[in-house]
């Protein structure tokens, strides 16, 4: 449930915690991102970083310049002045994905004993859990649904993604593994609860493995052209559009990424939360339809 106004608390002596809702609601994520942007625009001396998450945020501050209580006062003022959700300048990014790829399949096989039913690849388990007749229809449904980046983190650049244009009850969902895996290939796309995630580095994890994308989302050595400014690709609010590719398509794109000739198709758009909330399916269709 969303709080009528945000709940403020201390995250130790370096952070202030601001919580808008304890439930997952896209409207509250939009509010979180709007407020995070408004805080940045206010240029309050002593703020080190604004760290938005799904329906809450941390604000890190420099205690030599700012006391938590006066920071909370400033933040409450910003919250009260936000009469409506601001537009979010964002991007629609193409994400080619090889479903049931050999790498995540090998990983799922290695951790069969940790899985709910031991089914490999996990995609067929997820398709059945969501009442799809077969793998193909599941893939079609997923690729028809744009995913909104609600949060970046856990490990560098890892996006938490939530479907746009569908209600909570219609979202594709899956239970997490009974016991987490000790490793997952990078660029693996996983589903846990209603969230998709892309593993940014080889890391433990418990999401159901669906496939692997060609797109790096974290480039520690900043080798690729899209990472020259920053080792992390995605920001909260970025919209991912999944595109199913076969092994040849995957290999072709991957070699283009490796030699720097392939550039991610990215389209800049302005997302209007108020418009979305009035008509989620209609707004999403209009937004995605142009490209």
């Amino acid at each position: 449930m969303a709080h009528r106004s945000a709940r403020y608390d201390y995250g130790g002596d370096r952070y202030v915690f601001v919580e808008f809702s304890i439930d997952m609601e896209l409207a509250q994520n939009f509010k979180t991102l709007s407020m995070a942007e408004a805080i940045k625009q206010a240029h309050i001396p002593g703020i080190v970083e604004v760290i938005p998450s799904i329906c809450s945020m941390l604000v890190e501050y420099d205690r030599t310049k700012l006391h938590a209580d006066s920071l909370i006062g400033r933040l409450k003022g910003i919250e009260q002045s936000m009469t409506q959700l601001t537009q979010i300048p964002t991007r629609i990014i193409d994400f080619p994905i090889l479903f049931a790829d050999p790498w995540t399949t090998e990983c799922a096989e290695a951790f069969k004993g940790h899985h709910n039913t031991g089914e490999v690849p996990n995609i067929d388990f997820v398709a059945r859990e969501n009442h799809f007749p077969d793998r193909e229809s599941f893939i079609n449904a997923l690729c028809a649904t744009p995913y909104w980046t609600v949060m970046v983190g856990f490990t560098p650049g890892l996006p938490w993604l939530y479907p746009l244009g569908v209600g909570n009850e219609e979202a594709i969902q899956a239970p997490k593994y009974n016991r987490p895996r000790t490793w997952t290939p990078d660029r693996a796309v996983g589903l846990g609860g209603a969230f998709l995630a892309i593993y940014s580095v080889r890391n433990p994890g418990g999401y159901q493995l669906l496939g692997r994308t060609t797109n790096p989302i974290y480039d520690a050595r900043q080798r690729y052209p899209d990472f020259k400014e920053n080792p992390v690709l995605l920001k909260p609010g970025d919209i991912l559009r999944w595109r199913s590719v076969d092994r040849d398509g995957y290999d072709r794109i991957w070699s283009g990424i490796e030699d720097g000739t392939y550039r991610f198709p990215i389209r800049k758009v302005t997302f209007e939360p108020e418009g979305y909330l009035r008509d989620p399916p209609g707004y999403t269709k209009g937004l995605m339809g142009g490209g």
Partner: protein
Amino acid sequence: MLEIVQQGLEASVQDLYGRPGYYSQGIPPSGAQDGLSLGLANLLVGNDKNEAGIEITMLGPQVRFRDAHTIALAGGDLSPKLNGNPVPMWETVGVKAGDLLSFGRMMNGCRAYLAVAGGIDVPLVLGSKATYARGEIGGHEGRVLRKGDVLKVGKPAVAPVDLEGRRVDPSRIPKFGAHADLRVVIGVESYVYTEHGIKTFLSTDWQVSSKIDRVGYRYLGPQLECVTRTPPFGAGSDPTNVVDSGYPVGSVHTTGPGVEPILLPNDAVSGGGFATIGTVIAVDLDRVGQSKTGDTTRFTSVRIDDGYRAWDERENLLMESSIVQGR
């Protein structure tokens, strides 16, 4: 230059303040787990306190110096030796080309720091020389040090002769016993725990488990009582699950209801779905970095102003006035 001739358990290049400002992208600050000890070692050898040194965990590496350097060792006592002979900590030591630094038994603490006059010369990545091994950035090639690595040393700010005989004022040397008291600010998602659960958290001598690294410190002890509730939509199936939120550096959460608190030090994961009970004040993370498997830890509830005050006291220690000249 210096060369790692034997690897040890885990040694990495770290600076004092790490890499703030990238946590919203999932990149934690990193930096020395016991910043006070690294800072004092740097001051001994005339470096800026935030200069890069080597953090050495439990089982030390063997380091061969290729040139003459002034070094200082601080932090936990891992029985350092130079060419096989015990070498003092908390004071400057001159080494010659070919000298071999090695370590023996862990006598107290968990991490030792090696500072070299001029600092370890690695590139700045996102503003810091600190290693974040899980994210493969910073330090020496984004990873912990391995046998065969050769590290360059920067140009010393102070002539070696002026560094001779410098030591830390003995009254300012931190002590690392087998018990650590950590001050914690209860909050963030503490509402998931009952009053009784929080009381248990604050009145237990927790045992430091064997799962301790720069990403997480796990503690063994009783289960913390949680409130009875249906987890919110999107959170997961366990009552301690929350819709994924940010984890402050230094925060403590439990996994699977109220079991085995995990404290997140400087290489923290930036967020997740377990309820945070509270956050250890920044200054006490130094002490966490010196606690080891089998030690005990107790958490005491404090207010944020206690944290601010304690931090100021630490910053006042990280000054030239903590260093005395001669014997």
